[in-house]
């Protein structure tokens, strides 16, 4: 059997061998608690702080502004809940309004729902047909009661890149904190927290070839957050003994991503364009989203009258790993919240396919995908007409 073609890098990525190698000593002899006074502990502490420097370098932050967490979702909750609650507390309840968008990851939207249940007011901004949020709508939504605006950097399904710098500038001018979920952006496109002017920015290890179970949050110096996990670790921002090996892995992955970011993005975009051109030459296929403002490795296609999940299963049986949307293992064929927000019609949106390329994707992978897509799609269309 031939190797499976993995084109689902927005779901998760393979761990690079350099990352694994760097982690292993910390799973074996270097097991010390980084908070211990002895030499073994000091070794772990040194490794964590080196990783912090590397991660900070990838997004042009100061190392002291990086908080390690267990995943991107935790980072998002830390930022959204932490900032909303701190804003509420410090204003004696006067600030209890959060602005978000209709296309956020569940880590953000779910936290906003939780805040709403606790009495916060949430404004959910719509998007245009390309999933873009307009900075004007953000500006219009902010009031003197607003404590936080949260808008994702790049969408996990469509890949649309938001005007984060413009939105951050509006927030700063209005004295409102701004958080961005950059889980899909960091390591794929240039992300510079200074140039963007954001207050908080969430990222994840396993989307950039580090292992699952580690992520981080950039918190600009001086930003106060209510703490979710009590404890003095991570400068009293996040309790819990640090996950040394995974943090080291994230550090190495960040450095690898930084080194050839532009070249890698360009080669991924070329492969993606080739894949898209091949797919779009078939009948009843549409590309979703703005072709310019999006992640280099993400292609989102809609197949008219097709059940996207059936297509994913058919491709998997043919050795191709892709997805029809986020977390689609339940088999439901409902339009994702992102496609709904973009007002994609049902007959197209139910046939969604997300193809995401990344480290290790080859031309041969793209060709195999296209051959398989043509075959499986043809058979599904044939079966649907019986």
């Amino acid at each position, binding site marked *: 059997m031939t190797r499976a073609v993995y084109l689902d890098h927005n779901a998760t990525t393979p761990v690079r061998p350099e990352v694994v190698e760097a982690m292993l000593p910390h799973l074996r002899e270097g097991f010390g608690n980084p908070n211990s006074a002895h030499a073994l502990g000091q070794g772990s502490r040194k490794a964590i702080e080196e990783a912090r420097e590397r991660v900070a370098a990838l997004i042009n932050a100061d190392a002291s502004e990086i908080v390690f967490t267990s995943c991107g979702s935790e980072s998002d909750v830390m930022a959204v809940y932490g900032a909303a609650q701190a804003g509420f507390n410090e204003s004696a309840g006067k600030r209890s309004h959060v602005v978000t968008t209709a296309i956020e990851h569940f880590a953000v939207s779910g936290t906003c729902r939780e805040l709403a249940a606790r009495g916060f007011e949430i404004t959910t901004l719509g998007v245009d047909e390309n999933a873009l949020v307009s900075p004007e709508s953000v500006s219009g939504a902010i009031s003197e009661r607003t404590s936080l605006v949260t808008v994702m950097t790049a969408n996990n399904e469509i890949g649309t890149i938001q005007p984060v710098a413009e939105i951050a500038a509006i927030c700063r001018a209005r004295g409102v904190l701004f958080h961005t979920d950059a889980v899909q952006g960091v390591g794929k496109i240039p992300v510079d927290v200074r140039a963007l002017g954001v207050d908080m920015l969430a990222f994840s290890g396993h989307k950039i070839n580090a292992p699952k179970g580690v992520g981080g949050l950039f918190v600009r110096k001086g930003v106060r957050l209510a703490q979710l996990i009590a404890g003095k670790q991570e400068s009293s921002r996040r309790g819990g003994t640090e996950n040394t090996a995974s943090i080291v892995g994230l550090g190495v992955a960040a450095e690898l991503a930084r080194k050839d970011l532009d070249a890698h993005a360009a080669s991924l975009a070329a492969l993606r364009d080739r894949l898209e051109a091949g797919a779009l030459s078939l009948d009843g296929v549409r590309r979703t989203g703005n072709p310019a403002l999006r992640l280099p490795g993400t292609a989102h296609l809609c197949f008219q009258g097709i059940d996207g999940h059936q297509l994913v*299963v058919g491709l998997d049986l043919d050795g191709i790993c892709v997805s029809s949307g986020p977390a689609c293992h339940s088999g439901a064929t409902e339009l994702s919240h992102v496609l709904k927000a973009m007002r994609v019609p049902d007959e197209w949106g139910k046939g969604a396919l997300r193809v995401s390329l990344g480290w290790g994707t080859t031309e041969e992978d793209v060709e195999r995908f296209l051959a398989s897509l043509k075959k499986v799609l043809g058979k599904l269309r044939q079966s649907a007409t019986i």
Partner: protein
Amino acid sequence: MSGGVDSSVAAALVAEAGHEAIGVTMKLLPGSPTGFGCCGSPEDIGDARRVAERLGIRHYVLNFDEVFERSVVDRFVEDYVKQRTPNPCVECNRSVKFGALLRLAEAYDAPKVATGHYARLEEGPNGVRLLRAVDEAKDQSYFLHSLTRGELERVSFPLGEMRKPQVREKARALGLRTADKAESQEICFVPGKDYRGFVRSRAGDEAFKPGDIRDASGRRLGTHEGLPNYTVGQRKGLGLSGGTPYYVTKLDGPSNTLVVGSLEEASSTRFRVGRLSKISGALPRSCRVRIRHRGDLHEAQVEENGPEALVSLAAPANAVTPGQSAVFYQDETVLGGGTIEEVLG
């Protein structure tokens, strides 16, 4: 793989036979929480997935809620509104399990679909035959009569030769978590077994207009609570007092009347069958017919007439019910069947 013991063991037997088995759980009901009892509740999907993991086979949840809604649920409600007593499992087998799923399997280059149904298939000189299961108490051949020979050729029923206790024993031996799971209820899409409430929620109160209960002579005996509440042959819940028990003999839609009578009057010998399907060519003049799941096999004369058949029973049968299936057998073999359209006397 519904998450029950039967389909778990069917999957195990396919894998044991050396085939490349692919587990599929059909999601039949939209929204969440999904399913009641048998089809696609989160627990059942979880059980199916765990069984597939245990067997070392792939597993997918595939969505068939639209075709299920259209061909099973809508038709179920429509039948009750039209004074018929539907058989949703027949419809599900016809349109969903051996309709949409079989077509999808073909698109996936899977040569066969195996299920946990209790029925047997036998290759013969004239093609494949559908036979009753070895386990009489579990036999599901009645529900499968509408499959064509072409469909049966692409189907496998690994449990047909087994008895239920053996199936559970096999599941236990394989360490499958579903080994001792309770049987599912019959109508998987109706919450709490309240089919009347379900029909009312779909068809509205206007489908449940009260009307007269009368005997065959037209004498008014009481008031019924809407015809979809009743089925032919029903004795309980009529709200009629008096000496001799009354049975429902007919639901008369045009006059919104529930006709009742003696047990004798609720029995019939002649009826018309529609949507006739045949597995092995023309039906013989003389065969046996089953008019409800696990019901008796009645001696019958059959007169085919295009897509219909006229059936005359050798002796009267109780509660010949429009909407139920009439399935023709010769010995162990299912010859075909159809839907009882009209009772003729």
